[in-house]
């Protein structure tokens, strides 16, 4: 009993780290590949209240660590070029990198896919102590809803209070979205980003088409 519960010996870090992006030459399919959004975008109506775009094939890194671990906080700030947001339900963004607060010890970093491996290695080199960085790029995708009626679609889909007084630009909230789950972020005055699970992406896509039908849905490529 005591043998199986024995803690790992200190100093033995045994983590298999590999580049999960096969490179630009390899064919990659986003979770909504089958929906052929590019083709739909080509024959769209010109006007509508809701615009939908898949921000596909980005790098997603789940970061976990304690805010009390200075090496973790400093290392992340140094490697990502952005300090981790410690205020609940907030996000930070700089250039093509954004960081969402998920919980007091968890953050989601979204960055260009070709930087994910480099950043992951950088974090492992820079941080000491107990932390975790996992590349979850293949497990989820990012959808952007925008337009004057995007907020109405959210109101139908999730129990969050999305009034501007309660949901300022930059706020992040994990919630129930159409009985599935999503991490909702307000990225601009009229634009919102949803992080959805790969396995639910098709369902969410069907849901969003239905929910935005009355406002007019315009697909953007």
């Amino acid at each position, binding site marked *: 009993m005591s043998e199986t519960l024995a803690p790992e010996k200190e100093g033995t870090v045994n983590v298999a780290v590999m580049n999960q992006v096969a490179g630009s030459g390899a064919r990659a399919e986003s979770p909504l590949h089958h929906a052929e959004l590019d083709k739909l975008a080509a024959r769209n109506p010109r006007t509508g209240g809701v615009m939908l775009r898949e921000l596909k094939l980005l790098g997603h890194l789940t970061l976990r660590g304690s805010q009390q671990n200075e090496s973790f906080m400093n290392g992340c700030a140094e490697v990502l070029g952005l300090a981790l947001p410690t205020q609940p339900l907030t996000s930070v963004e700089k250039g093509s990198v954004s960081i969402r607060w998920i919980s*007091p010890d968890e953050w989601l970093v979204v960055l260009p896919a070709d930087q994910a491996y480099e950043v992951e290695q950088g974090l492992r080199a820079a941080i000491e102590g107990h932390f975790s960085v996992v590349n979850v790029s293949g497990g989820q995708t990012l959808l952007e809803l925008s337009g004057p009626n995007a907020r109405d679609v959210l109101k139908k889909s999730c129990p969050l209070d999305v009034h501007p007084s309660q949901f300022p630009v930059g706020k992040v*909230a*994990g919630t129930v979205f159409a009985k599935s789950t999503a991490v909702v972020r307000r990225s601009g005055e009229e634009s919102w980003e949803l992080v959805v699970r790969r396995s639910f992406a098709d369902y969410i896509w069907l849901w969003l088409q239905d929910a935005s039908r009355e406002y007019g849905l315009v697909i953007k490529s």
Partner: protein
Amino acid sequence: MLHIYCPHCREHREEEEFHVKGQAHIARPLDPESCTDKEWGEYLFFRKNPRGIHHEIWYHSTGCRKFFNVTRDTVSYEIKEVYKIGEQPQVVAKG
């Protein structure tokens, strides 16, 4: 629907974002081997079912995915307080 304050997200959210995980403050016996069958059985299976103040664990399953404690009145369903794991309740049943 309950409107529940998450102490980690620091705002109220709808009940459907949470799961209830049953009675709080159940201490696992330090030495299970020396428990009698009665003690071990009560630890595993026997739960309070009070009329009034009840301390229970809730889980913010679709939000921050953290556990926390809630003191709830089982008669009125009113949530008296919310506190983090490891803390002790301020509102307790009389007697």
